[in-house]
């Protein structure tokens, strides 16, 4: 029988329903796996073992009573920038080291109301953009190679899911912060449409791009979680009123008849050849499954890094104005971003907001020719923490030059994307692909990702740490 920690959330629920296992057993297994692997990866800021075991006992009772909810008894982690009532929420920072909210973020409340058991607060880069070598809590390390970063800013979420501490963790994504650690840790990640999942209760990084979503080891788990956390929140002005799709019901419909766009420019340039090959292999698999691959172009893709960075810096400088006189309490990385944000002029910031329409137009035109777009999960692989240099073929780039190259445009446009593992490349490190769709078509992105997962084994690969 498979270890409980190797099970996805969906598989755990099946076992709970059949009586093969109980939520308490699954939570105990998650706690033990965390104890075993945590010294190597440092993915957790706050363990919630006692609270988790109490919640698991309640879930045990609900399965016995026949009142189990959609995520009943599934152990989950929460990136430590989402407020958790009664449990400190640090943002991976010194400034909020002792902050204990008296409320749950809407997403946390929805997860708890659906029966999920929160077992840990997962380490982020400080304030979701600070230094990868977190000076306050130590760096989180990649389970595939502990000399390397898992990526960020949902670093603890990616590392923890890959290390089988939990099957699901909630992350946030402003420029790639779900998809980057998902890809570099060999797990799946979903960045929903901006506004699809309420941001109320999350510490903001840049409000016009911040998006909450799950990391997990199967596409089905991403769909299961989205079904719980999506939907309008009246107390959040950024929250959309668009109706939810049937994310689980559409999963197994396959890709026959779909048109999938393959970029002719930008995404496959300055991209490692093994990653390009993985994208092309995915395109072949979609073709074999009945989809048609069509070429698409993004004429203004060269603007995306600048639009993304100036938007991010302008908004974070505004948000951190309240503590700008405490720069010495921030990590050096985030303090630098706050400083740089001081010099983004109002006209340049607003120019970026207006130019977002231009990037959106590229996608609008592309989507006239296709239903979804296939791109790399990332251009490169997890860099070593010692130098943060990313390998692209025979060339190394500092990670800021390439890490967000395949992700930022989806935050600028607000489009949903699903990142899934696509094998191993340079030095046996994970690589991945992304599927992007029009706004509020997460159902379609998940369905295509599911079709890929069903004809590959990449999602089953585990880092040596898991079995070591």
């Amino acid at each position, binding site marked *: 029988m498979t270890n409980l920690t190797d099970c996805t959330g969906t598989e755990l629920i099946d076992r709970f329903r059949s009586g093969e296992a109980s939520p308490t057993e699954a939570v105990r297994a998650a706690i033990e796996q965390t104890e075993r692997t945590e010294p190597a990866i440092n993915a957790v800021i706050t363990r919630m073992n006692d609270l988790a075991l109490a919640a698991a006992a309640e879930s045990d009772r609900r399965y016995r009573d026949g009142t189990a909810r959609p995520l009943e008894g599934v152990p989950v982690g929460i990136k430590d920038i989402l407020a958790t009532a009664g449990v400190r929420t640090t943002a991976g920072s010194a400034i909020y080291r002792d902050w204990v909210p008296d409320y749950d973020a809407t997403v946390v409340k929805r997860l708890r109301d659906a029966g999920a058991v929160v077992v840990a607060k997962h380490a982020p880069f400080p304030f979701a953009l600070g230094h990868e070598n977190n000076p306050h809590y130590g760096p989180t390390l990649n389970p595939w190679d502990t000399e390397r970063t898992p990526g960020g800013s949902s670093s603890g979420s990616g590392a923890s899911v890959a290390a089988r501490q939990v099957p699901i963790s909630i992350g946030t994504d402003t420029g790639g912060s779900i998809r980057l650690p998902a890809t570099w840790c060999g797990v799946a990640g979903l960045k929903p449409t901006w506004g699809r999942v309420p941001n109320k209760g999350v510490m903001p990084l840049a409000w016009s791009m911040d998006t909450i979503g799950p990391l997990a080891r199967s596409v089905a788990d991403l769909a299961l979680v989205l079904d719980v956390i999506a939907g309008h929140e009246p107390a959040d002005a950024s929250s959309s009123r668009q109706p939810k799709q049937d994310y689980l019901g559409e999963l197994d419909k396959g890709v026959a008849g779909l048109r999938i766009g393959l970029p002719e420019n930008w995404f496959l340039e300055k991209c490692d050849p093994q990653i390009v090959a993985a994208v092309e292999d995915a395109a072949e698999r979609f073709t074999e499954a009945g989809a048609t691959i069509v070429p698409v172009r993004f004429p203004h893709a060269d603007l995306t890094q*600048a639009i993304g960075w100036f938007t991010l810096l302008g908004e974070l400088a505004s948000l951190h104005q309240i503590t700008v006189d405490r720069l010495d309490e921030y990590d050096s990385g985030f303090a630098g971003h706050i*400083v740089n944000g001081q*010099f983004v002029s109002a006209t*340049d910031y607003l120019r970026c907001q*207006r130019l*977002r*329409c231009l990037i959106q*137009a590229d996608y609008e035109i592309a989507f006239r020719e296709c239903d979804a777009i296939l791109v790399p999960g990332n251009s490169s692989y997890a860099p070593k923490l010692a130098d943060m240099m990313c390998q692209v073929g025979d060339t190394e780039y500092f990670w800021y030059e390439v890490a967000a190259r395949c992700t930022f445009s989806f935050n600028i446009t607000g489009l949903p994307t699903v990142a899934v593992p696509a094998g191993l490349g340079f030095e046996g490190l994970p690589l991945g692909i992304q599927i992007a769709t029009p706004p509020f078509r997460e159902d379609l992105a998940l369905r295509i990702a599911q079709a890929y997962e069903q004809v590959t084994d990449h999602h089953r690969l585990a880092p040596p740490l898991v079995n070591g």
Partner: protein
Amino acid sequence: MSSNPSLDAATLGAIAAAAGVKLSPEHLDAAVAFNEAMREDLERLRSVPLAFVGRLATPLDALAWIENGGRGSPFATEEATQR
């Protein structure tokens, strides 16, 4: 090739001071380096024409585009489609 000079440390320091933000010499040096590194990208951004009359593009259009299912960008014209 860039046409405008980068802002120097004294200018950046003055901008920060005017906003009530005190910066260390190290922060100022890093800000000068960042401004220099981003100068070409910024000039590329500033080179894109944005209309004052006719179909405008505002931040509200970007939000509406998302809510409208990815349709109706002011730039998604027939001419753009022919590119």
